């Protein structure tokens, strides 16, 4: 299997990194981002499962949406979609800012994202209130509410993350160009929520 001595190449390489090693002495390297990615991978499987269930209902049903389902208007959801998609670009600016050690920039952009997220959620609530079908009207209505509701829950969680970062960043020292995992995590999560929405919008409104 393996030789009984250390490979010279490895030793040399380790030596090369010794300075860095000393800096991080007895401290675990940061695996949180990788962990978050793995988690988001798992999370996306819930949505994948729900989306496929929706598609199956759709394919198996003789008429889809079932007869008598009222028409949905596309204006509010369309605007909502645009807001959510553009918020992804906005939150990215925060990342750019914090990498330049610009904590004020981070705060501004995060605040903007939070507002956009809140508008999206408000738009969802507005849409729910104005729809002519309820949760139990038919299979289409049920899937519509559960899918958008479950996504809305994720938007809400993402919003909480953003607000938490904002809260923590009151202390200007908390985030810096080197240490800003919280910012990255919130951003990544927000992008994830955004991508899910695009798929969901296509499935529920366009298709």
């Amino acid at each position: 299997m393996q030789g009984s001595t250390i490979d010279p190449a490895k030793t040399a390489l380790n030596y090369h990194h010794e300075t860095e090693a000393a800096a991080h002495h007895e401290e675990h390297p940061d695996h949180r981002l990788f962990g978050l990615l793995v988690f988001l991978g798992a999370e996306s499987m819930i949505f994948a499962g729900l989306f496929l269930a929706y598609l199956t209902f759709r394919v198996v049903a003789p008429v889809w949406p079932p007869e008598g389902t009222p028409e949905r208007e596309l204006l509010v959801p369309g605007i909502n979609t645009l807001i959510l998609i553009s918020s992804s670009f906005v939150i990215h600016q925060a990342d750019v800012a914090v990498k330049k050690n610009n904590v004020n920039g981070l705060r501004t952009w995060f605040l903007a994202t939070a507002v956009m997220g809140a508008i999206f959620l408000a738009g969802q609530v507005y849409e729910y209130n104005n729809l002519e079908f309820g949760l139990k009207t038919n299979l289409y209505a049920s899937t519509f509410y559960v899918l958008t509701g479950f996504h809305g829950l994720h938007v809400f969680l993402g919003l909480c993350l953003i607000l938490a970062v904002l809260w923590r960043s009151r202390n200007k020292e908390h985030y810096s160009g080197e240490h800003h995992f919280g910012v990255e995590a919130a951003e990544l999560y927000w992008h994830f929520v955004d991508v899910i929405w695009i798929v969901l919008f296509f499935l529920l409104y366009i298709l």
Partner: protein
Amino acid sequence: MTQAEWQSTTTPTTEGAIPGQRKWQDYFTFNTDHKVIGIQYLVTSFIFYMIGGALATAIRTELATPESDLVSPELYNNLLTVHGTVMIFLWIIPAGSGLANYLIPLMVGARDMAFPKMNALAFWMVPPAGLALIGSFFLEAPQAGWTSYPPLSLMTGKVGEGIWIFTLLVLGTSSILGAINFFVTILRMRVPSMGINDMPLFCWSMLAASALILIGTPVLAGALILLAFDLLAGTAFFNPTGGGDPIVYQHMFWFYSHPAVYIMILPLFGAISDILPVHARKPIFGYRAIAYSSLAISFLGLIVWAHHMFTSGTPAWLRMFFMITTMVIAVPTGIKVFGWLATIWGGKIQLNSAMLFAMGFISMFVIGGISGVMVAAVPFDIHVHDTYFIVAHLHYVLFGGSVFGIYSAIYHWFPKMTGRMMNEPLGIVHFVLTFIGMNLTFMPMHELGLLGMNRRIALYDPKFATLNLVCTIGTYILAVSTLPFLANAGWSWISGKKAGNNPWRALTFEWMTTSPPAIENFEQLPVLTSGPYDYGLSKRNPQMEPEESRSNVEAPPGFIPPEEARAGSPEP
């Protein structure tokens, strides 16, 4: 869960106490030490195992006679539902998590898991969920089977079914959090000298199992969310009365629950691959084949789920597709089994309890594997689906496989976990009783199923009475067989023979530290000087000299050299 993001990864500082000695109170706290969590998982799951076993004994006592006389038919369905759920979600899966928690950091030379707090959180979700499920007996227990197919599950009682869904959602979340930890720890926290092809095989199999958990469990969660809406909010996703489709639930359920079988058996495949070479004093035969076959099983395990639905709403061409993929799984599984056989062949086998259970594992698992290929064949499965043949098959895989594997792993790693040896004669008595009881209980079920006895029934045709009585006697033997184990484990933990660091003269990292290991596992992180299974090589040096190991430590903990550094490492 979003705790991951806010996780602090600093580990507790080493206390000056005797290495590895934990106060007993530590095991009842929110402790972030992976070794404490590992033991918490193992002990908790074993308690649930005994509860599940008691339920099984009640079921078999009812089935000792053809009449429905011991328990009411509703209670019978409660028993079988909770038995299945407990054994799968509260015994085998958490026991695998326990082994993984204890062993992975030690095996890869890490000081703890990647996310210790999340790890503790994942464990502490298990007891409340389990208690809720068991407690449901006092309120209203679920009675739609562990598969909980709608529309039946929507009609048998909201409270019981609601508790069942809650339990599974919590345990599923716990399982996902655990899997993230295993995945990241194995991939990112190996000592620099350990390339991915130098990992102990247990790590490989946990990698494969974690991938399955991460892909499969969320889909189950999705199904359960929809089921909960049907149950509590009155929607009709799975209720044909409102235009829903119960078959969609089956697809979503089995998309997780077939891989769940591999989630339950893969960790033990890995454990066996680690145990056999130690006690046979021979290198594992075909390291890479066994390692990669875990990944192959993991991948194939994701595309076979509808073989549970051959007689359900599965169209002909899908039946054929899932038949072929299911049969193909026999190939990577066969690679493992033949590899194990070749490992022990020609070795110097120490027939101790760990090895007996490991060999028993192969022996029993092969029976389950063979009947698995049989039931993959659609025309035959149409006959035996939902019969005792399936009950026999799944118990040969999960009892003969997973439970034997867990026992083997406990006998093997007990000295490391507690610093004390287990009693051998008691261990052998335990093995003999378990082996006899297991075969007496489950072998006749094959015949029962073929003859026409369906599963999940409290009363049956009197022509099946004799065989059922044999099964019931076997169950009692199984129930008794846990007594020597409990006595052994309890007594040995307190006053067993001192084990020393490496009683088995094994080569993997967990044996290179004290028994039980110190709080942060290693005084100095070990360096890979030989492969994990290099038995019989003159160069190898099982008892590593501390001086030598110190002089070799130059890399920062957890640092992995880039691929180029490993390119020159010799082939296995």
